[in-house]
């Protein structure tokens, strides 16, 4: 089986999910990697298991039309069976178009893969797992954090291609979040809050608790949508994928988009008044209790 991994970068820096896609790809067959971006990226993907790197020199800006065209062409020329990439915001702009172009099947947010090809993904807001069989060629998007990354120096051959930019989508600017530089993925202790905090004024209470406990405050989607928390604090789909030593969740029910981003945490402690909350399916420790009472008692201990 021939696999093409499409590298993803942010401002020229390789995103970790690309190494995870290479790791997943080597379990399926021979892996080539396509890099569209600055030259230096080709070295970053030269890891064990990669046969060939196809490098297209381009700027750091994301151009969905260019990626669609180049990925479709390279996959066609090389008779690629599976195009593999991360389930990311960038991929959502063009990966399904590659599937349409090549008459391929499309499966996204995959957390397990078996040769054949059978992909496992979550449906119905994470309450059901579906095994999907794909006939023929495919485009598969893997969930960040779900596969072991490829490591070790590789010995891939390098091929360069020249492509011209498409012009229909033009990058104007990149806006960094206010607390830019905060990398939730690097924190050892996260205190995460969700809809259960009830009111915006309660954010401060948990901010203070996080500070006194030495934790970094994180959030689920509803608080970001309400504008109560900045999106730099978002854990889950279109936010950060985290694996802290401790993930302490207050008032988070556990939507799949959130769980996907934190399920790999070493220890998950969940406090929620609702015993049916989905997060208890994942938590190592759970307390069915009033989050404000527990927060108040915790504050007394620090």
């Amino acid at each position, binding site marked *: 089986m021939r696999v093409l991994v499409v590298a993803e970068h942010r401002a020229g820096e390789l995103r970790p999910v690309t190494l995870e896609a290479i790791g997943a790809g080597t379990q399926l067959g021979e892996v080539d990697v396509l890099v569209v971006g600055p030259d230096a990226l080709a070295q970053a993907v030269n890891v064990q298991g990669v046969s060939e790197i196809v490098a297209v020199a381009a700027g750091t800006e994301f151009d969905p*039309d260019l990626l669609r065209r180049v990925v479709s062409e390279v996959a066609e020329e090389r008779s690629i069976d599976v195009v593999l990439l991360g389930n990311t915001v960038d991929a959502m702009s063009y990966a399904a178009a590659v599937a349409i172009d090549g008459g391929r099947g499309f499966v996204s947010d995959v957390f397990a893969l078996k040769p054949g090809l059978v992909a496992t993904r979550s449906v119905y807001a994470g309450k*059901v797992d579906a095994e999907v069989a794909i006939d023929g060629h495919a485009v598969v998007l893997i969930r960040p954090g779900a596969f072991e990354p490829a490591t070790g120096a590789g010995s891939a051959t390098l091929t360069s291609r020249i492509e011209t930019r498409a012009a229909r989508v033009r990058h104007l600017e990149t806006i960094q979040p206010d607390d830019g530089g905060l990398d939730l993925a690097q924190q050892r202790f996260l205190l995460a809050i969700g809809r259960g905090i009830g009111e915006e004024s309660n954010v401060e209470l948990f901010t203070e608790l996080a500070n006194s406990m030495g934790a970094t405050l994180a959030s689920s989607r509803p608080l970001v949508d309400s504008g109560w928390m900045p999106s730099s604090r978002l854990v889950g789909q279109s936010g950060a994928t985290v694996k802290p030593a401790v993930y302490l969740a207050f008032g988070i029910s556990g939507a799949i988009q959130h769980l996907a981003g934190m399920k790999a945490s070493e220890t998950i402690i969940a406090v929620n008044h609702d015993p049916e909350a989905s997060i208890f399916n994942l938590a190592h420790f759970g307390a069915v209790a009033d989050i404000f009472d527990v927060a108040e008692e915790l504050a007394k201990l620090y």
Partner: protein
Amino acid sequence: MKIVVCVKEVGLLGDEVEFEGNRVDPDFLDRALNEWDAYAIEAALQLREAVGGEVVAVTVGDEDTEGVLRRALAMGADRAARIEGELDFDALAPARALAPVVAEEAPDLVICGAQSSDAANAATPAALAALLDAPCVAVVRSLTVAGGHLVAHRELEGGVVDVVEVDLPAVISVQTGANTPRYAALRAIRQAEEIDIPTHALAEHDPPTRVIALRLPGHAGTTILLEGDSAEIARQIAALVKERVG
């Protein structure tokens, strides 16, 4: 400006589920407008209010799914159309069903929700854009139109926002939180009930993917319940944090 909004009726699962072969028993599903699509409708209405034009809501489904179109009409959409038929599970099936009808409308802009809550493929925007040969910008938090272009703020992982200018016609998908979807007035809801919604035939395609098994997610392990009053729970949490974080 003519805007097509693609909407979907989704199945919401409660705490219990039973399977019928390789699908969820419909008796266990509540039907509702997909959460993301309410933001898509609102984004379309706000654009129309800003620059003028027409909003057309489109869905794929049987007659029972017309409720999502009537909701869009009650919120303020000018027209609606339904593609008659039931879709299988395949991720690209909705885009293939929508494409001929959307192409016939020849809109300046197509707005979708970023994903659906039940199938969660997030495939329709980019696939539909490919079928219409239009550019696609996914996961948009805000958008404006000026000088024949669309300016969209893409929401990336980690709170980073990428601002792009896009040629029209284009297909975009909107993230939740992009706006505050309006409520429909009772009178508008009643009026929407009276509107005749035209239907289109569904073109057949052989799906390249199929569901071969459904199961409940494996429990990650056993959850140890922290018991006692709030003070006791707090004490146990503090001990765990000390032991595991240091």
